[in-house]
């Protein structure tokens, strides 16, 4: 697996490495937070680095993810779909992880850190509710108090997940400001964190926010890429897949799987929601503690994202993805609502897997581009970031509306 350096792009050793004490990924990243929160970010950075250098922490982290979380998740060969598309489709099955998505990996790591820092409470933001459910789960497992901020619009479209969080003993706080989706849930969680930072950890759900979150969350999610690298090698005669494809909201499942292949010649492809495409239609800016690509107007007022998928309804993207895009090491593309619903249905019918609407974005791009941007005969690893149970009611409505149309 040879490393590649294209057009003077920095070598793989500098890509997806340690972003340093200020958390810089090229021109992106940083720590743009009110002074009240800076000491908490510094404390977290120190606690994370210490834990991550401690074999005892890794042992505990991996033990929980195995015994409780159901890892390693398998890689599934999609025989019928591959035949239909003329490319070999492999799925990394994060939908089979406990709580139904990759979000658990990050949350177990952060909940363990919360304990190490001597804090007793966690707050979290959530869009689709998957990160909220994972946070509530980890809090129950480790005996922490948990409050989840969720936009009112998302509370409505993901009501099943709201109930799951409550069953797990968490408090769900509906957010009524702004667009009442993920962006506003993050705002509200940050506001709450300022007042409660002494005994509360903010368990951020993606590779975004101020340093050390983008770095730390990627490291916790890198278990996806490490597993997948070995699993693909076993299936592909030692080779890495030609393409590695993942959906991108904040970008944590993508960062997790990309990190396992960044030093190979695999093409890395991130798929954003067409209505929330920070790389495609955003420009550089600063929001939620990070410098990254953002949907915004000329003056710098943040625009609202629009997607049927609550987990991708976010106007920004993690800073490391902005950097991977700028260097050309990863490509970012988008999928529209209609093709996403089709992709979800096709996977269900041909492979017997109902995936999350978020994950269906990655698949939609593969369905569209097989034989095009994806040459026939290629091997394609898709990160199936979550299962679709949370979305079936919404998909039923969307399909009914489509029949009427």
């Amino acid at each position, binding site marked *: 697996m040879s490393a590649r350096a294209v057009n003077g792009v920095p070598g793989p050793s500098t890509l997806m490495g340690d972003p340093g004490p*200020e958390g810089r990924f090229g021109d992106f990243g*940083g*720590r*743009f*937070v*009110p*002074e*009240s*929160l*800076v*000491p*908490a970010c510094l404390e977290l950075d120190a606690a994370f680095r210490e834990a991550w250098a401690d074999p005892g922490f890794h042992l505990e982290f991996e033990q929980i993810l195995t015994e409780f979380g159901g890892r390693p998740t398998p890689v599934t060969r999609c025989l019928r779909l591959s035949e239909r598309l003329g490319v070999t489709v492999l799925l990394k099955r994060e939908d089979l992880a406990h709580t139904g998505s990759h979000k658990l990996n990050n949350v177990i790591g952060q909940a363990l850190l919360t304990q190490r820092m001597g804090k007793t409470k966690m707050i979290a933001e959530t869009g689709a509710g998957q990160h909220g459910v994972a946070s509530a789960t980890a809090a129950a497992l480790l005996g922490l108090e948990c409050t989840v901020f969720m936009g009112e619009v998302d509370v409505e479209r993901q009501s099943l997940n709201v109930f799951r969080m409550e069953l797990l003993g968490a408090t769900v706080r509906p957010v009524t*400001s*702004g667009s009442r989706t993920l*962006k506003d849930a993050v*705002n509200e969680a*940050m*506001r709450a964190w*300022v*007042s*409660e*930072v*002494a005994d509360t950890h903010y368990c951020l759900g993606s590779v975004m926010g101020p340093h050390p979150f983008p770095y730390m969350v990627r490291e916790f999610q890198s278990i996806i890429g490490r597993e997948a690298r070995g699993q693909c090698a076993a299936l592909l005669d030692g080779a890495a897949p030609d393409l590695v494809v993942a959906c991108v909201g904040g970008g944590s499942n993508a960062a997790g799987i990309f990190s396992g292949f960044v030093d190979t010649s695999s093409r890395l492809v991130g798929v954003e929601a067409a209505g929330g495409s920070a790389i495609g239609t955003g420009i*550089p*800016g*600063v*929001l*939620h*503690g990070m*410098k990254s690509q*953002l949907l*915004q107007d*000329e*003056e*710098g*007022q*943040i625009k609202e994202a629009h997607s049927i998928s609550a987990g991708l309804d976010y106007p920004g993207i993690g800073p490391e993805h902005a950097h991977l895009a700028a260097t050309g090491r990863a490509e970012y593309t988008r999928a529209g609502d209609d093709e996403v619903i089709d992709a979800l249905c096709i996977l269900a019918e041909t492979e017997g897997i109902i995936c999350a609407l978020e994950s269906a974005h990655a698949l939609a791009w593969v369905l569209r581009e097989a034989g095009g941007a994806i040459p026939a005969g290629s091997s394609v690893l898709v990160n199936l970031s979550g299962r679709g149970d949370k979305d079936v009611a919404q998909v039923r409505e969307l399909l009914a509306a489509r029949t009427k149309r």
Partner: protein
Amino acid sequence: MSGLLATSPAPGGGLEPGALEQHLRARRASGAKLLVPYLMAGMTPDWLATLEAVVAAGADAVEVGIPFSDPVMDGPVIQDAALASLAAGTTPESVLAALGEADIDVPLAVMTYYNLIFRAGHRRMARSLAAAGVAAAIVPDLSLEELGPWAEEAGDAGVETVLLVAPSTSEARTAAICARSRGFVYAVARMGITGERADIGDAAAEVVAKIRRATDTPALVGVGVSTPEQATAVCAHADGVVVGSALVRRLLAGEGPEGAARFVGELRSAIDDG
């Protein structure tokens, strides 16, 4: 407002105090406690008249908010003011154009979030502020580690950047922040976002003491100070107060320039009587 702000800055934001700091130091030397009200530009159609009324009622300087869509340091009252202002079409340019035309004889500091500065460009924003006669900028989400590029351009344009010290800030960080704060040092009264509080708590006195050990730049307490009594209590330790949400709430309720002047007048007499 030209006379006051024509003071030429030391190149590169050197040690010579700018217009805001000179003014506040002079007022402090005369024995006064410093009163800095906050209002959001564009939040009501008569915000400029309100600004003038607040100055006439005894403000030593005024903090003028430029609205941002996602104000993470602000509570519901200032969020509502920002929304109202954005809905009315307010932009950084429209605010600075209005301030440039206004006739105000105390220094002004704009308070906004970093993305608006970043998008405009550091040099362009610094020069626009200076051209509009604005003395200083307060950018709460621009941390010490990220300050450099903006501080350099602001210093070159003669714009002071006021930095914040929080209850959670260590002694060593406080020293580093105070060394780079210009105009005054903003002592955050409590861990939390802006908004009125029944009880000001005792963190403020400790923050002021930390600042005093690091600098003799004026230290003003803000975030949560809501009543004349609280302002007086805070001024027992601090050089002055910033009062935001309590004033903005009155303006959102339609009290207008007269209501604003009445409230600022009450604050003024309370801290003068000490």
